[in-house]
């Protein structure tokens, strides 16, 4: 179903509506559904950087399902999640050039 189909259904009941208002409501609906249903899975690739611990997550991320590292055979290999990160004493690298030191 396209946005136009949805707008037509709404306008049949409510009459002509501003387009931007319709898009806003449609996007609100999508956000609301996303908060209940987690079925839209996306992968994002970024560079693995030296001496960088924290990678900012996109605003669209709801929860992370897997993290992979490109191995020396150019294949992505899943890495395990740390079960006890609260035991990590240092939150970041001790290098001078790291802004999160």
């Amino acid at each position, binding site marked *: 179903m396209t946005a136009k189909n949805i707008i037509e259904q709404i306008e049949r009941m409510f009459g002509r509506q501003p387009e931007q208002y319709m898009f806003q409501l449609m996007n609100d*609906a999508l956000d609301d559904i996303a908060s209940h249903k987690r079925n839209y899975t996306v992968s994002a690739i970024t*560079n693995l950087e030296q001496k960088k611990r924290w990678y900012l997550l996109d605003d669209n991320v709801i929860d992370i399902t897997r993290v992979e590292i490109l191995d020396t055979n150019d294949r992505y290999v899943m890495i395990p999640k740390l079960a006890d990160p609260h035991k990590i004493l240092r939150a970041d690298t001790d290098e001078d050039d790291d802004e999160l030191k």
Partner: protein
Amino acid sequence: MATSKRTYPNTYFTWYNDDDRVAILAQDTTVSSGERTKEKYDTYQDADVTGGLRITYHSKYETIDAQDEDLKSIAGLDSGLHPAVVCYIKARMYEDMGDLQQAQYFRAMYDKQVKQYPLRKSGIRQLAVPRL
């Protein structure tokens, strides 16, 4: 020469996250580094790797901003949930108009459609209990 940690990533690397960041750690295999704290994991210290990190996540749907955009192919919403979007919009519009009875009706329809729609296409949805 020591084995590259990226030869066996699942042995050497690990991750964890907080609310808006993910941390990538690698096993600290240095013997003497002069550090005051010794921990099993530290920040990855080897060379940069282009495209070296892939994160898979459940995402919000993409936004719609043109009439010809399809909710399935552009936004990523399953086609079975498209009627729920219509119900949501109707509920919101009736709310804005002050007709709370109609708003409640369409909100209930929306909730029912979202709650009942089966999205899981993998895994067991319920336990099969054998009859004893």
